[in-house]
Structure formats: C-alpha cells, structure tokens
C-alpha cells in the first residue's frame, strides 16, 4: 500500500500545497474530473469535502476515488455529524483498502446551517475521538471496541483547526489535543488576519506542536468585497480585518485584488516558522488555483519518482 504522497512531500521538507474540491450536487462525475484537470501539477493533494456546510453532495468517499483515478492524491474529509462509530470505522476500512492515503477528521458543520435542517445529527463521537480511533486502528490494529483489525493500514491523518475561534487562549492547547489524538497534519481555517495567526503560531511553537505535526495554513481567494463582508458576518471562526474589506472595496478590479490578497497572505504565512504548507480553499473558483500557486512562487511542485529532497 503506497505511502501518502502528501506525507512524503511534507516529510522531505517541501512547502506543501493542497487545494479543495467540493463534490457536485448530483451524479455528474465530469464535474470532478474537470476540476482535477485544472489542478493537476499545481497541488500535492486535493481535499474532498464531506457534505460541507451540511448541504447534500456526492459522497466524499466516491469523489475521492474519482479524483485518485484522475491521477491526483485525495484527502478524504470525514465528519462525525452524519455517521456513528460503526459507519465511520467501516468507511475507514473501505478507504484504506482502496488506497486512499490521507484522511482529515472533522466534526462538520451543524445540519441546522445546511439544506436539510430538519435532519437528525449523529455526533456519536467528536473529531478528536475520531482521530484517536483511526490512529488506534492503524497503529494498534484495534477497533474502538478493542477487537482486532485485520489488514494493512497506511494512512496519513489530519485535522482542521481554527486559530480564530473563542476562547482564543485555548486554541493552541486544543490543537495539542488533536495532535496527541493522532493528527499528523493540520489544515487551518482561512487566514485573513495574519497578526492573530502569527500569535497563534507563536503558541504553537512554544508548545512544540509544529515539530509534532505539519501545519498547513488555510487561505481563501475572494472575488469581491461583498463576498468578504459576507464571510465576516456569516462564517464563524473567520476573522476579517476591516482594512482588508476597505482595500477590496476601493480596488478597481476586485477580482484581481482578491487574488493579490491571497498571494500576499500565502507569502506572509510561508515565512512564519512552523508553517509547512498552504491549503487553498478556492470554493467554486478552482480555476484560479494554478495562477495563485504560480504567482506565489510555489512551482514547480515535487514530482513522484524524482528526488523529493528540497
């Protein structure tokens, strides 16, 4: 079973680049294939969201297989909102058996914020417990109930974290819990306020967490001041400085200013000690990722089969 390419890239000291693909609200697999064509060669791995914002889409598992068949390594996101420990462990076995080599463990957006607010959630376990269960399945070869897991499991486990949610002084300590539970890489919530992120990273370094896990800083390219304002108002866990909104408002071409802001953010966070990569969440704007990666100076990406030392 192949080792995660994302892990190899990070392990060899390269500054990693990941992106995100949201599966379609339908059965058309071409949607995913087209997005793969845009991203191939520009990123090391692609996250496939698991019914993000609690809106029903093609499953992350199925979409990951499509992405992998397109020659791109998927990061399978799994949320604890919709499945109990039985279903999560079952899908984990299937994913590992089929060679999905990266899994990102999340609690997921609450269903009342999505398009089936009448549904019942599960939350049998939380994201930290999910990490611990998967880690034990891989390393101890045991299910959550202690029974033996058969077969090889070679998976790179990740988690999300927001440097911006309250209480701020607990965020780095909670990250330590995630890492202790099994998170080997972290993809953060989108960064617009680099100062707060910087302070969080100071605490992360103080706790030595950057040496125990790879931190990938999340960024979102935004097309307009309006979109930025919307995120400020509606998306918890994201902090957007007013001066950034003003900058977008006064730009002659807001779209290209948004790209500019994203590239600047990448370049700033790349300089912060302990940041091992960047996670570009170009929601419904995947086509812009190549330009951002290229203009951020992150090309060429390492290639399999070639030396991965940087």
């Amino acid at each position, binding site marked *: 079973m192949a080792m995660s390419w994302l892990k190899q890239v990070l392990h060899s000291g390269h500054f990693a680049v990941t992106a995100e693909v949201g599966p379609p609200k339908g059965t058309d697999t071409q949607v995913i294939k087209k997005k793969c064509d845009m991203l191939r060669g520009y990123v090391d791995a692609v996250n496939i969201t698991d019914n993000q914002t609690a809106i029903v889409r093609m499953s992350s598992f199925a979409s990951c297989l499509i992405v992998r068949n397109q020659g791109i390594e998927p990061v399978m996101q799994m949320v604890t909102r919709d499945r109990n420990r039985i279903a999560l462990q079952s899908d984990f076995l299937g994913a590992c058996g089929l060679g999905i080599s990266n899994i990102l463990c999340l609690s997921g957006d609450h269903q009342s914020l999505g398009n089936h607010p009448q549904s019942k959630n599960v939350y049998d376990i939380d994201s930290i*417990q999910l990490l*611990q269960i998967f880690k034990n399945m891989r390393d101890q070869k045991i299910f959550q109930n202690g029974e033996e897991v058969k077969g090889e499991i070679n998976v790179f486990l990740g988690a999300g974290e927001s440097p911006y949610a309250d209480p701020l002084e*607990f965020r780095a*300590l*909670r990250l330590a819990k995630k890492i202790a539970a099994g998170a080997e890489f972290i993809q953060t919530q989108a960064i617009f306020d680099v100062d707060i992120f910087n302070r969080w990273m100071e605490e992360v370094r103080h706790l030595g967490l950057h040496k125990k896990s790879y931190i990938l800083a999340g960024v979102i390219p935004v097309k307009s001041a309006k979109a930025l304002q919307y995120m400020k108002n509606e998306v918890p866990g994201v902090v957007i400085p007013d001066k950034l909104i003003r900058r977008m408002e006064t730009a002659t071409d807001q779209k290209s200013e948004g790209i500019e802001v994203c590239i600047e953010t990448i370049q700033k966070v790349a300089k912060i000690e302990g940041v091992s990569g960047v996670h570009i969440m170009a929601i419904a704007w995947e086509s812009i990722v190549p330009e951002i990666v290229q203009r951020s100076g992150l090309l060429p990406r390492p290639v399999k089969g070639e030396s991965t030392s940087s």
Partner: protein
Amino acid sequence: MIIGERKPIPEILTMLGASKKVLVLGCGTCVTVCLSGGDQEAQEMAALLRIKGYDTKSLTVERQCELEFINPLRESIQSVDTVVSLACGIGVQALSDLYFEKNIFPGLNTTFMGMPVKQGYWEERCLGCGNCIVHLFGGTCPITRCAKSLLNGPCGGSKEGKCEVKPDRDCAWQLIYDRLKKLNHLDWLLSIQPPIDWSTSRYGGQRKMTREDIWL
C-alpha cells in the same frame, strides 16, 4: 423540571375533531411551574374550547405521571369522550395506559428538561444520558448544551461566547472554559475525553430502573 409548551389551538381543534364532551386535565407539578399546563392554563383552555362549542370541563391533579393521582379520575373521565392532557408526554401516556378506551390527546409539546433562567425564559440543561460526568466540565453539560455534543470542544464556531448554531445561546465550551479557569482546573481540559458509552442513554432502547428492595 420538565418544560412543556402549549400546542397551537388549531392543532388541538384538529385533534378533537368530532369529540363532544372534553375534559382538560392540568398537571400540578413541572408544567404548572413553567406556566404551560397547570390549573390556570387548564381553566383557560376549557373556556376556549367551550367557546368553540365543546362541552368542556377542567380538572387538575398533583402529578399525571403517578397512578395514585390519576386512578381517582375514573368517574370524571368516564363522563367525557375525550381528555386533553396538559401534562408532559409522560402524563399523556400514563392516562392512555389507564384509560384504555378513551381518547387521550396531548395539549402540550414536551420540550426539554431544563430550568427557568429568568422570568419567562427557560433553557435546556440535561438530556438524561444515564451516566453523568458534568463535574468534569465545570458543571456545564456539553452533551446537552453543545450543539454538537462535543466532549473535546470547543469547535471552530464559538464566537464571543456564543454558539454558531444558535447565536442567542451561550457556547457551552466557553462556559466550561471560564468555570474551570476560575476553579484552577484548566488542566482537566487537556486530557482527551474518550467516546461516550451511549448504551445508558435512550440510544440503548427504552430505559427502566428497578429497586427490588422496595418492591411490595
């Protein structure tokens, strides 16, 4: 206490349908305290149903969830064709068991186990999971009060002490953090809480409790 909220009158009228003689039965315990199903509310509903043309009377017992209080109602219930119970769902079911041949309709929606936080405002506090560990969380139950029931919270949606799911509700994890900080026990939050054993909760099927030492 158990909190209940009166059903909308049109819904009650739809349930009543062709009923003619109706007893509105209040309950003197939890739903009296939360001002939804006590004697006063029973009288009010009876008056309302009378206006709508039903031959209605009202009564209130101490607790509809105990047989000793609803057993003596046989005569009153025999004289009507329908009972609208203003008790919680337990009272409605106790009456249904005992008065097998009568229509027993719920006049309340049983909403949660909670408390009045201030005048005219009640909030949920307990899910009855069957294995209380609230002391580990500074006296705030994350299973009940965190929208995701996180045992290793807070999630990324906690903002200025409020929950992203219901912004008028406190983030349980902010309350937990604040209290444990005050108690000098923030270290308690550093250990990973293992998955809950839900078998003691409703998810293990209907629950019961036995005390053989007090059996008659």
